[in-house]
């Protein structure tokens, strides 16, 4: 099986889908001839033709709006928003239109579109190339939000997203495009090469939406994470002697509630980690769901480790980014009682 980094895996998913399904087409800023600023669509135009993978005007609203119209007609557009920070001009289209079309039309029209976008920090991208906007999508009924954390998942989940008949926001943790990143920015970079999850089949396969992945079994405490934070949490756990169960959520809508509840009932404790600002972030919803379902099993308050309630500050990258030591603290707090 070839070893792929996450970019290659995503590229392979798109390649497979362009090949299999003539209704699939790709557009977005710089995705055509150039292949995207992160190279995710590299060579797809050259291979599949100008009209299957092409550049779009700098207009995120227009990109999503056009995709919805194509999707309603029957195509399966996959669009790229160059950075998740720039998804906001398309927010109205996603919320008022894509998410609502099936419901309001009684199934008469649907929006089977996939909106891919690199997200998250740790790349010195500053305020507007580092944000994690998942919470503002999770709250919207009618949208699915998927976040892969490995090359294998990236490909399998992206294929699922494209085949899904509902609109999917597909957030790609750009910090781990080229290798798993454990939050120790001062240590040598790792590549995907040695990672078992970098064994990615060439052809078509899916990872279903809504099924989480147990990264590490454990009995002391449950750790919920997604995206880059899976690796940061993994590193933090390994720096303690705590036997933590680490779950990579993979998608936050649909959410794998059964796996979460089963694990927390087993461990009685939970730590949630995300990069986005804490207040109003997705960690709040997770905490509430756990409290509602596992209250009598909980032996300590659920801990949230998240970005601070400030914008993402360029020079303070490593002060802002939730680092392993903060997760270690939370783990210790969670098991203290």
């Amino acid at each position, binding site marked *: 099986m070839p070893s792929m980094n996450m970019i290659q895996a995503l590229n392979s998913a798109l390649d497979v889908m362009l090949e299999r399904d003539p209704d699939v087409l790709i557009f977005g800023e710089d995705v055509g001839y150039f292949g995207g600023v992160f190279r995710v669509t590299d060579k797809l135009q050259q291979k599949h033709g100008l009209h299957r993978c092409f550049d779009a005007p700098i207009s995120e*609203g227009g990109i999503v709006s*056009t995709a919805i119209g*194509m*999707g309603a*007609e*029957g195509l399966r557009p996959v669009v790229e928003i160059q950075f998740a920070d720039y998804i906001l001009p398309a927010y109205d289209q996603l919320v008022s239109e894509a998410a609502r079309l099936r419901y309001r*039309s009684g199934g008469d029209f649907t929006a089977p579109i996939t909106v891919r976008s690199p997200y998250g920090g740790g790349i010195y991208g500053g305020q507007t190339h580092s944000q994690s906007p998942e919470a503002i999508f999770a709250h919207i009924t009618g949208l699915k939000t998927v976040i892969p954390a490995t090359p294998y998942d990236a490909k399998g989940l992206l294929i699922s997203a494209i085949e899904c*008949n509902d609109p999917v926001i597909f957030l790609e943790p750009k910090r781990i495009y080229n290798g798993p990143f454990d939050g120790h920015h001062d240590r040598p970079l790792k590549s995907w090469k040695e990672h078992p999850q970098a064994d990615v089949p060439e052809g078509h396969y899916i990872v279903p939406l809504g099924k989480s992945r147990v990264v590490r079994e454990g009995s002391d405490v449950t750790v919920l994470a997604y995206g880059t934070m899976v690796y940061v949490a993994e590193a933090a756990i390994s720096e303690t002697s705590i036997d933590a169960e680490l779950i990579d959520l993979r998608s936050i809508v649909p959410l794998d509630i059964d796996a979460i509840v089963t694990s927390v009932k087993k461990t009685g404790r939970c730590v949630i980690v995300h990069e986005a600002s804490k207040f109003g972030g997705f960690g709040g919803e997770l905490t509430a769901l756990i409290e509602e379902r596992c209250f009598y099993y909980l032996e300590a308050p659920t801990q949230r480790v998240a970005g601070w309630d400030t914008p993402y500050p360029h020079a303070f990258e490593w002060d802002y980014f939730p680092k392993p030591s903060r997760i270690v603290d939370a783990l210790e707090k969670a098991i203290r009682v």
Partner: protein
Amino acid sequence: MPSIKSRQNTGLHIPDPICRPGDEPDFSGLIIPEAGSVPRPNFDAEEQTLRSLPYGLIRTLDDKGEAKGDWQPNASLESLIIALKTMLLNRAFDAAMFAAQRQGKTSFFMKTSGEEALGAVPSLALRKDDMCFPTYRMVGWLLARGYPIIDLINQIYNNAEDPLKGRQLPILYSAREYGFYSLSGNVGSRIGHGVGWAMAKAYRGLDSLAMAVIGEGTTAEGDYHEALTFASVYKAPVILCVTNNQWAISTFSGIAGAEETTFAAQALGYGIPGLRVDGNDTLAVWSVLEWAAKRARAGLGATLIEFFTYRAEGHSTSDDPTKYRPKDEPTIWPLGDPVNRLKQYLTNQSAWDEKRHQEAISQAKLKVKKAAKAAEDIGILGTSKSDIEEMFKHVFEEPDWRIKEQVKEVGI
């Protein structure tokens, strides 16, 4: 900090209409070229040769109901009669549903008054495989294509037979089979879908097209520019239309830019043809749509059309226009009434007469009355609705655990 008083010497220009309630209505500033005075270019003319069109006003029917000039549609008298009947049906429908709202049978309604040609004519002039991305004043499209009136009313009453399952505000229909895209309360946000739909048709190598319509007030939304940009860049087979009915709720068209230029002139910024048309002139409307459709189907891309018309009544059942404009403004609108003008033309052609007209009106009323009665028998808002399960369906293709749990919580 300068005093409030000095602010009265503001340099900020705020457009304000010349007449308000109590004033004599006044359209004397309106320049109305003679019918037939704008020549019709070939459908495949280069954009450079079309740049004066946005500043003219394409008119075919003159004051006497005679058809003048080059902009003559390829429509038979029979199909024009269908258009007229559709408009009469639209009027009967509007009257009945407005009354129904006043009687509490539904929460809300919007009339088309004065703009009836702009629903019926495109529906007839375009093909069955074309898709309309309508505004909420285009029920005429559905009526012209024979969509069951009872289903419209079931939707408006949100009763147990509502095709949209009680989920939508009245009149926000969706009817794919009839080429009518799902409406929503948000204005403007579907214009780009029309462009995407059209691009999909081109992608497939088909020659069907999309027509997407927006009110003149709504042209200020960013969506509109984005749609025009994509339509122009990818030469999408789409007809983009602005219904300039002079008003956006209480706001006159000057707040949308009409003090400075025409809405059709926006086309120039995208290098596509911009046609400005008398929207109360059925023949002219039909003809420009034919022209734009031919262009689109030939792969020559998008056209922008401004339909110049007048919203003859309130914005919706929630609105009282006498609060912000002279009461009799509608009656002196210099471009007349689309029904009367078409009637006059058909009468001149000996294809129609007063008797047939009155018959058509009675028939229309009867049709609507029957449908309304039948719908009411099913139920009205508050007395009948879809199964409560419908509240939870179609959020996704398959419900996730949240929906399943909540369905249980409701106790279904």
